């Protein structure tokens, strides 16, 4: 009696609904669930548990002894579908506990997650019951986190991850062209040792700002780590590379006026850089090929500087 009354209530619900006993035996399904699962009365949902028979049996046992709605996962045509299981109370289930499994949250959760995917319209495919403002807030937060994950926090330039993503994207075009410069500061450790890390950080920030000015709107600058900087200017050719090399060396050499945090006289900190460059497609077509060439040329420049 109780099962029939309950099923009548759920018969036309848009979500799949199953009535099960605490041991997982099916006592009935609504139309939507009947279309999704080939389950007859008496069959066990333990056979279609997505997380294993033991796990779902344990959860059903918990749900049968409390009024909390608990999550369970079932396999549906090879896909995991989330359900909420709760105990039926009162006269509809007087003899043995019955559990209602309602498959609703899966779609909601997946759609809500899709709303923060930056590759898609943040509102497309999202659960329409979610307020639009909430969806936009989540998309904005996801964009902010992505920017943070690709930013060098000392200089505000791209970090290694951000640089690689940008260069790979630009180089993906069949006719991609561009130049990359690899700059490594000379004597940076000695500067750090003499004036301290605060002075070193001031130089890195100043060099970062200067290199941002060098590329302007023609490309991006990044600090993949330590005292190394990379410039990437898509669309530039070997003439542009030569020009950027000299501009980079001049920009780095500009003195940085720095005052120790504890006070005292201001000091003019001076840095120089060894710079190597590579051009696509002449020197390579991939990120790794171009950086390897630019890196080798940078080291050659550094060796020549040390030699003489």
């Amino acid at each position, binding site marked *: 009696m109780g099962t029939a009354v309950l099923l009548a209530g759920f018969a036309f619900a848009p979500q799949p609904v199953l009535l099960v006993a605490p041991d997982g035996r099916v006592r009935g399904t609504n139309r939507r669930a009947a279309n999704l699962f080939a389950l007859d009365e008496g069959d066990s949902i333990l056979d279609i548990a997505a997380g294993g028979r033991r796990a779902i049996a344990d959860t059903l046992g918990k749900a049968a002894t409390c009024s*909390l709605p608990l999550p369970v996962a079932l396999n549906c045509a090879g896909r995991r579908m989330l359900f909420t299981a709760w105990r039926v109370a009162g006269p509809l289930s007087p003899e043995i506990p019955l559990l209602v499994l309602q498959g609703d*949250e899966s779609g909601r959760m997946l759609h809500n997650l899709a709303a923060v995917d930056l590759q898609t319209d943040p509102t497309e495919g999202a659960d329409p019951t979610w307020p639009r403002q909430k969806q936009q807030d989540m998309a904005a937060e996801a964009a902010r986190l992505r920017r943070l994950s690709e930013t060098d926090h000392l200089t505000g330039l791209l970090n290694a991850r951000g640089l690689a993503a940008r260069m790979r994207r630009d180089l993906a075009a069949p006719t991609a062209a561009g130049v990359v410069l690899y700059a490594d500061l000379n004597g940076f450790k000695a500067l750090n040792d003499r004036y301290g890390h605060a002075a070193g950080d001031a130089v890195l920030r100043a060099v970062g700002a200067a290199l941002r000015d060098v590329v302007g709107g023609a490309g991006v600058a990044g600090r993949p780590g330590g005292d190394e900087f990379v410039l990437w200017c898509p669309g530039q050719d070997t003439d542009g590379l030569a020009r950027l090399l000299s501009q980079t060396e001049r920009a780095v050499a500009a003195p940085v006026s720095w005052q120790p945090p504890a006070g005292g006289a201001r000091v003019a900190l001076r840095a120089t850089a060894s710079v190597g460059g590579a051009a696509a497609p002449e020197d390579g077509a991939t990120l790794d090929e171009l950086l390897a060439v630019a890196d080798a040329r940078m080291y050659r420049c550094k060796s020549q500087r040390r030699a003489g």
Partner: protein
Amino acid sequence: MKPAGPPTWTPTAEDFFADIVGGLAGTLQDVAGLEGAAGFVASVGTELGRQVSRAYGADTDCSDAEAIAAVLVDFKRRVGGSFQVAEITADQIVLTNGDCPFAQRVEGRPALCMMTTAVFGRVTADANGYARVHVDKAIATGHDHCRVVIALRRDDDIGAQGHEFLA
């Protein structure tokens, strides 16, 4: 690479794991909603409640409200909470708490309160045969303390607040 300096964040193991749990609950609540997140937390809390019952022998040796309350207070004290008994009658136990084991991580994350609800509910039901747990006030929702009411007798009033637990 620049030589590593002294870290600016040096958490204890307890802080670190509390941060992980608090972060997971917050993310789950943001994505799945409060009810969805509470279900996941409750599932874990129910299992922990079973373990607490077994550990204290509460499923066999507790026979009165005072003994049950003592188990709940002692367990919470051991995990960093400071619940106190505010009231004990034959019908209910009322416990209050001035600081949460999750500290400020719980603010805005009431899904974590389901951990307390489930543990208290499971332990009490294992000992008493029935419990209905209602978190009346919660630091997570902006109160300056938590107040948890545990009803020990079944109330057929459909409007009775809280989550029920059976033995």
